[in-house]
Each structure stands twice: as structure tokens, then as C-alpha cells.
């Protein structure tokens, strides 16, 4: 699923990375806890989160996520946007709640991190 398809499915707004919407996303994971993202995330992840401070972008950069989708209409702060621009991490925001956003993506065929690893 491309980032563009994900944007349309979740009726999301692109905050950073309008030129990156052709990126292919293979799996996703949702958490507000960056500790969990660091423990269970994998490079290439689409991160869904309601945590809108710069640590969300810093964490995304550390584990090499493909993009961040902020849920519940949240938007990153200025420091987060600046870091995302510097590191080339697309940021999107959807008004859907975490559960609904994850459910929509999963029901349209985008697996979770654990689902991906269990297939190995």
C-alpha cells in the first residue's frame, strides 16, 4: 500500500513529505509509548501515534520508520516538524482515533509488525 493510498483511506493531511507519497508501506504499528516503538518497531514501519512531541520523530528516525501518521487530529510540534524535514520523514495527520485508523489499515491489507514477523 502506498503512502498516498493510506492518506486517502484515513483522509489524512500531509504535514511533511508531499513528495514522498509514492513510498510503499509494507507494515504498520500503533503506540503512544516510544519505549514500545523502540522495543518492537522495525525499519520500514508506518508509525501511528498520538504522541505529538519531537520524541515521536526522534524515535521514528532512530528505528528508521517510513512515515508517521498522527491520530486523533494531533499534529507534531515545531521541533518535530523541523527534525522530520531534516531527516526526510513524512508526517501525516488523521482525525480518526487510533483504533479506527489501525482497523482501517489492517482491514485493507496492511499487516502489523508482529503479523509480519509471524510469517517468517
Amino acid at each position, binding site marked *: 500500500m502506498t503512502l498516498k493510498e493510506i492518506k486517502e483511506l484515513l483522509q489524512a493531511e500531509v504535514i511533511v513529505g508531499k513528495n514522498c507519497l509514492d513510498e510503499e508501506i509494507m507494515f504498520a504499528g500503533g503506540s503512544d509509548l516510544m519505549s514500545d*516503538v*523502540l522495543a518492537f518497531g522495525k525499519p520500514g514501519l508506518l508509525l501511528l501515534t498520538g504522541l505529538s*512531541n519531537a*520524541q515521536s520523530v526522534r524515535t521514528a528516525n532512530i528505528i528508521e520508520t517510513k512515515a508517521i501518521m498522527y491520530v486523533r487530529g494531533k499534529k507534531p510540534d515545531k521541533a518535530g516538524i523541523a527534525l522530520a524535514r531534516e531527516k526526510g520523514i513524512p508526517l501525516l495527520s488523521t482525525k480518526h482515533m487510533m483504533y479506527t485508523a489501525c482497523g482501517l489499515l489492517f482491514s485493507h491489507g496492511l499487516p502489523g509488525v508482529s503479523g509480519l514477523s509471524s510469517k517468517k
Partner: protein
Amino acid sequence: MTKSDETLLSQHFEITGGDFNNAGKASTSIKEILQEIGIDSSITVRTSIASYEAEMNVVMYARRGELTLNITPEKLHLKLKDEGPGIKNIDMAMQEGFSTATDEMREMGFGAGMGLPNIKKNADKFELFSIPGKGTSLDIIFCLNKTEKK
């Protein structure tokens, strides 16, 4: 000193306790260095995760800390020393989910009790020393000749 012990690169970072605005900057710099010098991407991600967790622990719990990156032909060594409350019960601290985090730490997305176990999980060798009331030091080592962990 043998050739395998020869330091190829050494970088030092100061970390200030309670400085949530700059939390993670040292680890972001370390990641950039590892990418620039062409360290394997899997080792770079594992090192960056361990470094970030260790750095956040200093920001959250200690007054100050020093993070040093040393690279030899065979190993990548992260050494962290902090001045802070130390860890009273290391066995408890190494358990996933055990945390003494405050609400402020949790608002930053941390403090779930995953930090130290996650550092250990990502490292090839991990040693922790702590003196309650004084501080904590971590030695986190990654072998450069193997990309997969154990």
C-alpha cells in the same frame, strides 16, 4: 595494544538531566556518524536504539551524564556514565515493565520500563554498574563482524 584494540573513532557527548527539549540529540548524532562511516545498517539501528534508551534514562533520572562512542576494527563501544540516584535493585530494573517514571516522563512517551531490557536485547554485550545515591554506568558493546544479534 593489538591492532584489533586500536581506536578508529571516538566521540564524546554531554547529556543534561531534565533537558527534554534536547533529549535524543546525542543518539541522533551517533546514528549520523555510524551512517557516514558506513557501519552495517542493522548494527546502526541496534546501536541507535540502545543509545537513545540510555540517553533518555539520563535525561529522565540523572543530573548529568556522559556518553562516549568508541569504535575499534572489531567493536563498537557505547559507554555511559551518569551522576544521579543510581539503581537500588538492578534485577528489578532489568525486568520489562518495572518503572519508577513520573507523569512528565510518560508524557514524553517513555518510562514504560522497557529501556534497560531493550538496551540488553539490542547489545551483544551489556554491563551495568550502579551505586545508589551516586550514579550508574553502562557498557554497551556491539560486534562489528556480525550483523545479526546472537
